[in-house]
């Protein structure tokens, strides 16, 4: 490594060729392995996509040897009885659980980071332990209390018990995500606002909240994904109510209808397109 000086007098480090080759490889190594790992993540998704065209009832077991690829499942995604009710439940529960968990989790995070009070350590513990508890134990304990306790006050297993359970396990994830954002925030930005004669609530509205918002949004996104894809806890507390993952699991023994592949792949595609779309719009705006 040698140091030369440009005409403006600023020293510039030039790197030897061997080092540069090594850097080049190291650069590509991370990106190449990242792409390979992403392909590995997508492999079963691609499988569901291919089998959504399978001209066969037991779509996930084998490709129909005689049938040519068909579009009929894509034209009739709600064909199998109950599949779209299950999907609707998953979406409704996902949205409601996300809203409730994000609001109360964000409040908790603010209290735990911004205030000193007795029992703060206990509060942190109360948030941490549910995350350190395996889902099956959460499901078993909730089933026990729902059946032996809360059913006596009229709460039967179904939509609402699933919602309650999902909010419970999402809250901790929201708190952790929002807390991380709050802790990495520069406190001097708020101090500056106060110095400029903003009162407490103005500072919160104009400075604190906008700075924390990205954390809150990623917490909400995480909550929705966790709730939407949950099976183990849902299976314990759902009674006769179906969600999309439960529908797929229950129909596994009889053969998963090809429409499940259609729906599963479409949801994946929608999620990707939304973010890619936002990204493209963002970069167009940035150029304009």
């Amino acid at each position, binding site marked *: 490594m040698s140091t030369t000086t440009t005409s403006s007098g600023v020293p510039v480090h030039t790197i030897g060729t061997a080092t540069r080759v090594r*850097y080049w490889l*190291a650069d590509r*190594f*991370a990106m190449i*392995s990242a792409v390979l*790992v992403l392909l590995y*993540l997508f492999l*079963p*998704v691609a*499988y*569901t996509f291919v*089998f959504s065209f399978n001209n066969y009832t037991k779509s*996930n*077991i084998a490709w129909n040897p005689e049938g040519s690829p068909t579009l009929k499942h894509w034209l009739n995604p709600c064909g199998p009885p109950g599949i779209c009710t299950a999907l609707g439940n998953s979406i409704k529960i996902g949205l409601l659980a996300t809203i409730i968990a994000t609001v*109360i*989790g964000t*409040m*908790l995070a*603010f209290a735990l*980071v*911004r*205030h000193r009070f007795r029992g703060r350590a206990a509060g942190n513990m*109360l*948030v*941490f332990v*549910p995350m*350190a508890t*395996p889902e*099956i*134990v959460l499901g*078993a*304990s909730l089933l*026990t*209390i729902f059946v*032996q*306790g809360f059913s006596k006050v009229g709460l039967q297993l179904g939509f609402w018990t699933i919602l309650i359970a999902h*909010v*419970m396990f999402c809250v901790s994830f929201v708190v952790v995500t929002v807390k991380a954002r709050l802790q*990495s925030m520069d406190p*001097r930005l708020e*101090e*500056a606002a*106060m*110095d400029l004669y903003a009162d*407490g609530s103005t*500072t919160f509205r104009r400075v604190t909240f906008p700075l924390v918002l990205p954390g809150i949004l990623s917490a909400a996104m995480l909550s929705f*994904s*966790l709730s939407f*894809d949950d099976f*183990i806890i849902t299976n*314990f507390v759902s009674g006769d109510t179906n969600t*999309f*993952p439960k529908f*797929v699991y229950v129909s596994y023994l009889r053969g998963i209808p090809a429409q499940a592949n259609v729906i*599963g792949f479409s949801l*994946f595609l929608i*999620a*990707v397109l939304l*973010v890619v779309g936002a*990204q493209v719009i963002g970069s167009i705006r940035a150029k304009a």
Partner: protein
Amino acid sequence: MSALSALGSATAPRPAGDTARAVGGRKITPFLLLLPGVAWLILFFIIPMVQLFTVSLQSNFPGYPGYYYRDVNFGNYWRAWTEFAPHFGRSLLFAGIATFLAFLLAYPLAYAMAFKAGRWRNVMIIAVIAPFFTSFILRTVAWRQILADNGFIASTLNRANLLPGGHITETWVAVVAGLTYNFLPFMVLPIYASLERADARVIEAGGDLYANGFTTFRTVTLPMSMPGVLAGTLLTFIPAAGDYVNAELLGSDKSTKMVGNVIESQFFRVLDGFPTAAALSFTLMAIILALVFVYVRKFGTEDLL
């Protein structure tokens, strides 16, 4: 210190973990903020746990299958431990291997997301999360078909005589592969978050000083991402140890069943299984919490949360 002058400097020191200042705060504010969340967690986490604990000590009414009475019967724990010790062993072993493999796969991806992705960063984040929407049950079933005996992978390995038993599915290999796959995003996201927060200039400086990729990685990058690695291993290991879906869909009838499978079947399929299932749940939780605290003590230098 004047806040305004401090704004001018580009490198802000990272604020301390607990900046406990109440912005416009009165004494009552924290309690109002805490109330809904704490109430929810007490009602739907603490109380159910207490109830499950009392169930784990109940006894069956002799002659009345499916009926229990309040008791302090530690026999349920004894039974859970003696009868199902192999299942506990498998759960911890499979989850341990899966966590290690997930770490090896997740790190380069998280690293590329944090430092190499540029404007593709958000797209890569959603690429990690989006498979959730296909439903993990559907993806696990897909893995069963991909790894099946007549599938490409198993048949190729068989032709090369590289598959000792002749199968991938119905073996522990498939179960561990499924666990690794399913919990990989929980490893990627925390590592990415900690790398993203790390100052890229520190790593560059490390590169300038050591001028060796691996040394820089070992002495600078990896230590800076330790909080993320710690959180990621916990978020992978815990659900993997309690999982039963992978063992159910990818494993065999007996030799690959995990604790989760026993708890599930004791709850739903075995008459009089409730107290045993509860005792198994508590034993599993105790083992995991103990491991977590030892692990956090050993590797967690700063506040985990």
